[in-house]
């Protein structure tokens, strides 16, 4: 039990409700900090950070502190709603839960009995994907994913494929030991408090921070050096750094030999079906050549000293070369020289050369030694842990591009070359990571009436053979075309393509679109205006093209207006949740952690937690796992599921206090008292990684043993960092017509060019054939630290901070266009035009305009007045971004996505700007017609902490 300073909690039957502190988990963004919720007479009075919590250690950001205003938001839905007006109008009638669940069961039951593919179930910012995914699997639709496809998948997939872990919140710099920190475009909604805490520690130690970002705000404002890079060229900068490190010989060769596939032999057989694949022995183990004798041997041979260069003859006469030689040849090419990339990236060659030297200096002259013996997976004992104290971090800034997967791969290559992955002072994996592809599932598709799916939807294809294609080898099985030739490694699905594909009935039409907590009719879609049209389009029969839409949200968002049936969710203080190791846990590098939410106050409205509703629906639909042999529900509600569900024997959603007496961690029987133990411990569980397992987890025997004991993995998993990514080469071979299945003709050139097994940079797709003079500027968004997606606008405090947004325009661009602060400008992209207020800014890349993300709102949404500044002056760049690129010569329109993972290329946007000839006030455009508010009007005044409460 934590020592807390909580005043005694009065009993719940105190006259005005409980007073005291209850500890739960924040949900104001995806950071998931521990919070102390102070109650006073049953009302939420104050929220502060939980000092004991592994994520935030007591601190709390603006959003977290403003949680009170979210909890009491006037936009909260109050009761299930059934649409009465046209879609989009916002006209509903309130209905009872029985009717709502009955309707949903009828709609879903029809689908499941006939063709489960006709359900598309996608979730947004929820943190229960292991449960929602399991539900969809039991339902039997192949069409399930969360929102990673338009958020993070480039980075997640690149990290998993390369080293078994990724940036985002799945890894972190060794803040206390690193000597140089380089941060690329990082959003303020994942791991944000840990990063801020970490930056504070670096500042206290005087460690240099280099920010790489077109915009110099936030983290970049305090960076000691700022590289105002041109959007979409990060990969080029990184590979120039790689070039420079190779050229000057400042790489960690020992690390490469030990932990990477640098010595593995790649078959050199131009034109052959095996060209570019690893040479393997009969067991499939990759081969290496002995450095001294040239003898070909298994890479697993103990004590082998492999060659990194040369050409070797295999026993069958084929020739092969080590990965490293190919790698060195590729990046030492003058195309990657600093001088060659300077103009394109906007970073001077001398700067790149200097920074490469600084990276090397930190890595090699300030190496960190931790006196901790450890044993690697090959059984070799090391007396100490030697670290390369240079760290990198990145998020959406580099990944939301059509070259994002390869760029993220390039960054991992850079980290690995200097030996700084999971070493003291380097980038560290957070449990359950590392978890390489070998320990990950393959994607599962196929769909039969009344039948569960064979396995989880999402996974990591090893090659074309794992794609989810119809028998023709071309047509996608999934509505979002994930794991098809469009996006073979789309490990998170492609939520952003669901509505447009369903509307186009390509690959097929659907009956029910079921969404949770995703504002797809507004800021979470590209081209929001056309998405709203797709949602309201009717076919010749007068029926909506997307016949039925069920939506669950806690608030009156834009998406609510477009649904037929609304299942109102609770606020985050009224619900159970588990932030599970099966999903996206809250671990820190030194500890395996998970946490819960629990109802610290009861809802005062007729609303239910969505996950409980989903389990109820599952029981009504008689889904396997949710109904017992007698047809009764297995789980009472989500809390019951959190405790009693077992994914595998002994492994459940929560890792703490397992076993019938709560004495087990990780593996153990369900413990009926588990949630109370979590509550008593402040809402989280924390199991510290043993000292011997703290670093080199990818190759550390102690880590492997510990992870297996904790249930993080079933057995030892080999994790050799994949500098050369063979699965990509397989796709190239398929595109070359050498192996099957093979992509359709029109995909082949692109796969050949982009699926380079070594990290590569290519210009963002939107730039192919783009008239640079017509669209000379890049346009990007940033997430404000004080606002999360669209949620913040209903928040009486946060909306004062960001009630409207302006387009920040470089001073020189302003001067050319005759723009001054407050002017209205017309911003034009190849697919649209918007009218926006502008503000001059010089601390920005000279060819980049930007704005805050998701501030613009549709009038009438979020219980705001129709003339709220969010609707009159706020705006979205989404209207300028199409989910398809302009037509190419063959008339085809490619997805505006990364070709490998399908990640939405939000930041590839190119625009031109001009002053609006009409400066006479008015509103930002487009201005959607107001939606009716199903929750009525909001109060005028807020006096927090006083009666009457809101």
């Amino acid at each position, binding site marked *: 039990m934590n020592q807390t300073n909580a005043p005694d909690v009065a009993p719940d039957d105190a006259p005005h409700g409980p007073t005291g502190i209850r500890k739960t988990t924040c949900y104001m963004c995806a950071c998931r900090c521990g919070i102390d919720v102070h109650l006073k007479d049953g009302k939420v009075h104050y929220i502060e950070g939980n000092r004991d919590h592994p994520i935030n250690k007591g601190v709390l950001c603006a959003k977290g502190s403003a949680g009170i205003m979210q909890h009491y938001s006037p936009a909260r839905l109050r009761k299930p709603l059934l649409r009465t007006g046209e879609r989009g109008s916002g006209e509903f009638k309130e209905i009872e839960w029985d009717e709502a669940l009955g309707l949903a069961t009828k709609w879903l039951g029809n689908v499941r009995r006939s063709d489960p593919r006709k359900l598309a179930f996608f979730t947004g910012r929820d943190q229960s994907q292991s449960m929602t995914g399991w539900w969809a699997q039991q339902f039997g639709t192949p069409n399930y994913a969360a929102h990673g496809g338009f958020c993070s998948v480039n980075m997640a997939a690149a990290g998993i494929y390369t080293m078994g872990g990724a940036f985002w919140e799945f890894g972190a710099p060794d803040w206390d030991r690193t000597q140089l920190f380089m941060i690329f475009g990082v959003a303020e909604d994942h791991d944000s408090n840990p990063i801020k805490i970490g930056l504070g520690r670096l500042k206290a130690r005087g460690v240099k921070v280099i920010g790489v970002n077109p915009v110099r*705000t936030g983290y970049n404002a305090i960076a000691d050096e700022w590289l105002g890079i041109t959007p979409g060229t990060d990969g080029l900068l990184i590979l120039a750094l790689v070039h420079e490190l190779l050229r000057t010989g400042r790489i960690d060769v020992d690390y490469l030999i030990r932990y990477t596939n640098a010595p593995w032999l790649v078959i050199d057989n131009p034109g052959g079906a095996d060209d570019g694949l690893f040479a393997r022995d009969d067991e499939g183990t990759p081969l290496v050549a002995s450095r001294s004798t040239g003898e070909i041997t298994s890479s697993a041979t103990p004590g082998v000293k492999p060659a990194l260069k040369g050409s070797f003859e295999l026993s069958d006469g084929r020739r092969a070369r080590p990965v490293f030689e190919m790698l060195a040849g590729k990046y030492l090419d003058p195309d990657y020289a600093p001088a060659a990339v300077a103009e394109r990236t906007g970073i001077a060659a001398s700067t790149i050369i200097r920074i490469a030297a600084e990276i090397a200096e930190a890595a090699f002259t300030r190496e960190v030694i931790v006196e901790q013996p450890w044993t690697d997976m090959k059984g070799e004992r090391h007396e100490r842990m030697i670290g390369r104290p240079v760290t990198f971090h990145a998020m959406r800034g580099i990944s939301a591009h059509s070259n994002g997967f390869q760029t993220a791969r390039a960054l991992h290559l850079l980290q690995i070359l200097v030996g700084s992955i999971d070493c003291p002072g380097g980038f560290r994996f957070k449990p359950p990571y590392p978890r390489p592809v070998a320990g990950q599932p393959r994607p599962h598709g196929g769909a039969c009436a009344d039948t569960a799916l064979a396995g989880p939807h999402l996974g990591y294809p090893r090659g074309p053979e794992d794609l989810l294609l119809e028998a023709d080898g071309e047509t996608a099985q999934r509505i979002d075309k994930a794991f098809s030739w469009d996006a073979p490694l789309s490990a998170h699905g492609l939520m952003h393509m669901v509505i447009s594909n369903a509307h186009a009935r390509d690959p097929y039409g659907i009956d029910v679109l079921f969404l949770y907590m995703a504002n797809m009719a507004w800021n979470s879609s590209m081209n929001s205006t056309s998405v709203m049209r797709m949602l309201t389009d009717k076919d010749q029969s007068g029926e909506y093209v997307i016949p039925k839409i069920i939506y669950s949200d806690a608030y009156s968002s834009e998406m609510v207006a477009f649904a037929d049936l609304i299942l109102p969710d609770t606020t985050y203080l009224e619900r159970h949740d588990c932030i599970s190791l099966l999903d996206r846990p809250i671990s820190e590098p030194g500890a395996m952690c998970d946490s819960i939410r629990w109802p610290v106050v009861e809802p005062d409205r007729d609303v239910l937690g969505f996950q409980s509703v989903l389990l109820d629906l599952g029981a009504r639909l008689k889904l396997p796992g949710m109904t017992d042999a007698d047809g009764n529900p297995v789980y009472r509600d989500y809390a019951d599921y959190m405790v009693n569900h077992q994914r595998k024997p002994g492994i459940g959603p929560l890792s703490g206090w397992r076993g019938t007496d709560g004495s087990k961690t990780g593996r153990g029987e369900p413990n009926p008292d588990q949630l109370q133990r979590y509550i008593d411990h402040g809402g989280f569980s924390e199991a510290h990684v043993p000292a011997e397992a703290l670093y080199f987890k990818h190759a550390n025997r102690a880590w492997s043993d510990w992870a297996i004991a904790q249930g993080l993995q079933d057995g030892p998993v080999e994790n050799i960092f994949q500098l050369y990514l063979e699965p990509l080469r397989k796709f190239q071979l398929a595109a070359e017509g050498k192996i099957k299945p093979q992509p359709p003709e029109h995909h082949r050139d692109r796969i050949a060019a982009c699926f380079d097994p070594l990290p590569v940079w290519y210009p963002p797709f939107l730039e192919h054939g783009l008239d640079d003079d017509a669209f000379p500027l890049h346009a990007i968004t940033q997430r404000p630290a004080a606002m999360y997606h669209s949620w913040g606008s209903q928040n009486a405090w946060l909306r004062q901070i960001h009630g409207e947004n302006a387009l920040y325009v470089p001073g020189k661009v302003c001067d050319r266009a005759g723009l001054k602060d407050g002017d209205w400008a017309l911003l034009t992209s190849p697919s649209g035009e918007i009218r926006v207020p502008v503000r001059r800014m010089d601390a920005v890349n000279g060819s980049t305009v930007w704005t805050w993300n998701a501030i613009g709102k549709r009038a009438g949404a979020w219980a*705001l007045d129709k003339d709220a500044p969010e609707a009159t002056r706020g705006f979205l760049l989404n209207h300028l971004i199409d989910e398809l690129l302009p037509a190419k010569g063959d008339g085809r329109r490619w997805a505006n996505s990364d070709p490998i993972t399908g990640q939405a290329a939000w930041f590839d946007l190119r625009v031109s700007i001009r002053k609006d000839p009409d400066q006479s006030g008015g509103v930002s455009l487009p201005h959607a017609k107001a939606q009716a508010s199903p929750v009525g009007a909001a109060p005028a005044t807020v006096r927090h902490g006083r009666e009457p409460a809101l």
Partner: protein
Amino acid sequence: MTSLPATTERRLGLVIDLDTCVGCHACAVNCKEWNSGAQDSPLSDVDAYGADPSGAWLNRIHTFEVTPEGAPAQIVHFPKSCLHCDDAPCVTVCPTGASHKRSEDGIVLVTEDMCIGCGLCAWACPYGAREMDPVENVMKKCTLCVDRIYSETLAEEDRIPACVRTCPSSARHFGDFNDPTSNVSVLVAARGGIDLMPEMGTKPVNKYLPPRPKTNAATRTDPARPAAACQPDTPRPEGFLGWLDAALDRLG
């Protein structure tokens, strides 16, 4: 009494580190949240969901763009709240005695039920540290969380202002400036803490630590090469693969 004490026993205040503040508004919102609940009356908001929302806040985060001669512009996030001045003009102008500076710790406070809401103290303050509550019609200001720092129910470690406790990047520090060994005094000495608008003669207690000098891309010459003994050799004339041989030889 609105005359100022000649000296105060302690001089409690904040150090705000502009080299570390990322402008996240955490301090401002947590301040609002704590003080709305904790003070005599709430920090109210009007037109809260309407066209012109505003409210009383005790701490606001400005964002400035600073452009050096011949170097790229930089951004400084700039939190601003009451500086608890030694020579606080907001105190002496107060006609009722509501506004006062405490002789024991130097905190400048407003006694709400004595405040007539004339606004003159806000006019007298050059820093914009005082805001009239739009519903309560009394002047609001930072109290240094006087109810926290002297609380007997809070844990010892929590007896600091809410903004300091919540600041994720540790850009805010609280302490006694009269004590030369306090954390705030040490920081100010080490980092050259500065006063805002010293020309106003207000003698602020709170100090700001200025941003450290930046490295400006492409304006600096390369640093000296790191010591050769500690790093792999640079490639020899036979090129990178020649260097590789040597590096591998050293590995044995």
